[in-house]
């Protein structure tokens, strides 16, 4: 087991090391001109290189600059301060969680309708596909502004956009799952003369879980993206989107990158939470999904 773990950790570390080296190289190249412009005329290339890796407003901050920015903004302020990165992460996460909940509920209801009502199957699917063709990222600002004009500000418009962006995988996954029941097991329910509701509760629903969880794993990071995008347009006061925005206003590239890394961490946490829920279900089912 230890051998296995080591053999997995080693390649991973190699990749991380390689990425960091490449990142430093890229930072050096991109920041070189700015560093040279700021440097004294008699500065050697080592001085310029040192300066390029420690600029205040670099084009591309170095990994250590991003790390120290993250460390500072997470640990130097209380979590309820607007200067704390955790505060902003919390605001975005809350909107994403609400949006994800909307996506799961709406997705399930739509899937149940599609599976049980023939007309919905034919009438609804084209619209659902069309809804995904709409570039939500582009119209999100409009949605936020429109909802704001009817008094819906704060978390509601963000959650709606997050839900919009993430419900489709849930619908398709659930439709497939609810239809995945083995014909023999369905015949069996018929021999018991089970009602449609019983077939749903005892066969279709449990069968759909094997499709719901992968769908949720796709949907959870999408909800996060939706929440961040919804924070961009109105110059929101809080949230990772707001951090991205103010960072780019003031050329605070380390702040942008710190927010991006925080978003990545949140996405990993979201997927891990879905995995955890799945593990609980698997355990209650005796070890198989």
């Amino acid at each position, binding site marked *: 087991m230890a051998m296995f773990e080591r053999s997995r950790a080693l390649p991973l570390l190699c990749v991380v090391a390689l990425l960091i080296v490449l990142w430093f190289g890229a930072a050096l190249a991109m920041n070189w001109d700015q560093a040279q412009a700021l440097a004294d005329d008699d500065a050697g290339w080592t001085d310029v290189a040192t300066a390029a890796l420690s600029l205040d407003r670099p084009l591309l901050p170095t990994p250590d600059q991003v790390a120290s920015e993250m460390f500072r903004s997470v640990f130097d302020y209380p979590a309820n301060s607007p200067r704390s990165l955790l505060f902003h992460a919390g605001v975005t996460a809350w909107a994403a969680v609400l949006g994800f909940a909307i996506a799961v509920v709406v997705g399930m209801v739509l899937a149940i309708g599609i599976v049980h009502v023939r007309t919905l199957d034919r009438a609804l699917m084209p619209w659902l596909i069309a809804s995904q063709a709409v570039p939500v990222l582009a119209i999100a600002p409009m949605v936020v502004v429109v909802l704001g004009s009817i008094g819906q500000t704060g978390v509601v418009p963000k959650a709606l956009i997050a839900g919009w962006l993430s419900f489709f995988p849930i619908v398709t996954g659930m439709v497939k799952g609810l239809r995945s029941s083995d014909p*023999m097991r369905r*015949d069996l329910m018929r*021999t*018991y003369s089970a009602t449609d509701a019983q077939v749903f509760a*005892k066969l279709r629903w449990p069968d759909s879980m094997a499709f719901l969880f992968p769908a949720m794993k796709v949907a959870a990071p999408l909800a996060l993206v939706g929440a961040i995008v919804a924070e961009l347009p109105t110059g929101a006061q809080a949230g990772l989107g707001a951090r991205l925005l103010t960072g780019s206003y003031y050329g605070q590239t380390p702040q942008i990158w710190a927010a991006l890394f925080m978003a990545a961490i949140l996405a990993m946490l979201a997927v891990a939470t879905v995995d955890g829920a799945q593990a609980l279900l698997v355990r209650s089912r*005796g*070890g*198989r999904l």
Partner: protein
Amino acid sequence: METGRPDKPDHGEHEGRPKSEQSDAAPERSDARAVIEAHDLGVTFTADSQTTVALTGVTLSVHQGEFVSLIGPSGCGKTTLLRLIADLEQASTGTLVVNGLTPEEARKRRAYGYVFQAPALYPWRNVARNVMLPLEVMGLPRAERQARAARVLNLVGLSEFRGRFPWQLSGGMQQRVSIARALSFEPTLLLMDEPFGALDEITRDGLTLHLHELWRRTSLTAMFVTHSVLEAVFLSTRIVVMSSRPGRVVSVIDSDLPRERDLDVRETPEFLALAHAVRAALREGHGDV
């Protein structure tokens, strides 16, 4: 092509009726009521404007307490006949009465238990909960469900496996669970569609013996679809030999073996004579197509 093939009267047994009148003289069946009565039953499938006659001119009556095997080559409609009785398929012609009712009424009153080719257990339910599934559908109270599950699991010798999940059991044990499940709501009729088809020979022998004892100790009427001549002869009081294209009854062979049997009966001359008669009928059915 339909009924009244010129060669049919040659094997008078296929009509069932003359034969059963004849054998009604046998004391154990004379006063038993008919559980299944099929008259001139036919099924025609149409797919892509091509018509397939799956079953034609089947006339057969099965009395209470009988063990009737349906044997014949693949595609002879033996499974279709079983599914007609179970109301999982609709007859195109003829009449079929199950327990004095139409198949649909009989199904709605849960007159029969059905065992499929595969165990068709629900993988997310443990053994006991699988067995309780039909009882839940029927709406029996919890205590009653548990009592019945305990009894039928004892009947198939799987009491100590009640908490296991299907994937933790061997194929033979899974099929025993599925038989227990079919018995749990106390049907008077047990329909089995090649229940041991996917199992190795030693397991088959054990289960065949088990099934025989189960039938002998209860007042069950059983219909058993099989490919195996030995299995059919060992288990049955009557063997219905069918032929394919179109599926029809070639011959009905009454067994004069004692009701109580063990595996050694397979070495007796009576058993071998019966097996020979079944094989001859199978060849005959195959030859005249």
